[in-house]
């Protein structure tokens, strides 16, 4: 999802907390923020509430935004959105709202059980099986065209860590896609 950045003059007005500029900001980035939040959340929590909170936090923090800094406004917003969504997922998990069977199979050999589960899983399950960090890195890289450096900064980890997470996420999803491709009615219809 490519989003055209706001003109510098509008960013400066946002820093001065101008409501008109804020409206432009929301209109420009709302689709990207909703997409990011909903994909990282993965069905837990209220997407609109979190998107709203993303923009409200940005409004409050805008006076500290450095327009001459390395970050684009879009990356800054997606950073806020991703961290909020990850935080909600962590809280859901600790409260048992996310089915632990999907991400932590109970078995004498959890690794082997996870591998067997992955081998059977379709794409939807493969997405659900991504751990939170892999999910966030993958969403930012694939759907929002963020660079490795930007993702590392957003998630507060080293670039090498981001690459590892991306590699694992893409391997899982690619395999699931290819498994699904053999049986997917959409693919079968397309092929015919």
């Amino acid at each position, binding site marked *: 999802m490519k989003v055209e950045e706001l003109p510098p003059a509008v960013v400066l007005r946002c820093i001065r907390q101008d409501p008109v500029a804020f409206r432009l900001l929301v209109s420009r980035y709302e*689709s990207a923020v*909703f997409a990011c939040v*909903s*994909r990282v959340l993965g069905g837990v929590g209220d997407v609109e*509430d979190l998107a709203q909170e993303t923009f409200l936090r940005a409004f409050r*923090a805008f006076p500290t935004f450095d327009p001459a800094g390395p970050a684009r406004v879009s990356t*800054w917003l997606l950073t806020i959105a991703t961290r909020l969504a990850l935080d909600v997922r962590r809280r859901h998990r600790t409260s048992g709202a996310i089915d632990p069977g999907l991400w932590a199979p109970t078995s004498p050999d959890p690794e082997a059980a996870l591998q067997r589960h992955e081998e059977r899983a379709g794409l939807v399950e493969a997405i659900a099986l991504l751990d939170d960090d892999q999910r966030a890195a993958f969403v930012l890289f694939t759907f929002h065209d963020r660079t490795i450096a930007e993702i590392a900064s957003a998630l507060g980890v080293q670039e090498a860590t981001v690459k590892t997470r991306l590699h694992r996420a893409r391997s899982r999803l690619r395999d699931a896609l290819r498994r699904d491709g053999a049986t997917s009615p959409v693919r079968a219809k397309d092929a015919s």
Partner: protein
Amino acid sequence: MNEDLSFQDALLTADEERELAARWSAVAPSSDFAGRVLDVWASERAALAPHTPPETPVPSQRRWVLQGLALAATLAVGVGIGTRLHMKEEVVSSVDQTTAQTPPHDPANGSSGPAPGSAAPSARASSSPTVLPSARASSVAITPRVELVAEAAASAPEVAAPQTRSAATIGPVVRALAVQAKSKCWEPIASTSKPERAQLTLQLTISPEGLVRLVLASGATEVPGLATCVKGVFAGGRFDPSREQTVVSVPVVFVR
């Protein structure tokens, strides 16, 4: 973009990326999302701004009488709600509570490290703190602020309704709703997920007939489901009729 990727062994093809995007569907913003966000922002700013005097000047003697009546009404409501309710002076600074919990340069909750593009941390307070009276009923603190949105007089119902609503008339209803929200929303959540505290700001749009037309909530994202539940409780509120639509900003704090 993404040119710094040094490993290529797990890249998805363009077709695979398209299929993935289609099947890992994203939620689209609802209509006028921007308007609602800005409404919440405006009400948040209004709630944090210092009290301003009414537009029409009130003679000082009459103002004292009105303040005395309002205080008496509030005290009477406090006694009516329960013995555990007591008046309290709550300091609300212009630094909002949610942002104050995290460094100002890192608006995303619970994460460390400076946010990209941000400057060194700086104080966000732009004006001196204001002192607001609030009522705290065991674990609920409410500070209703009233902002009136004028409507055409022609649309007002032909009833002997008061000219406008005030905090004194809205406060009791809001307090009763907050107590309901505490028992229906906060206590069940607090009994399972152990949050110590949650703060959210509600914006209620009340029709001239006294029905709640719209409830917006911000904050308390760290407590899943709380904002949605509280919005549901406040949506059922019934207020006195008035000649105008009223927008009320209600900060609510739940404390274990």
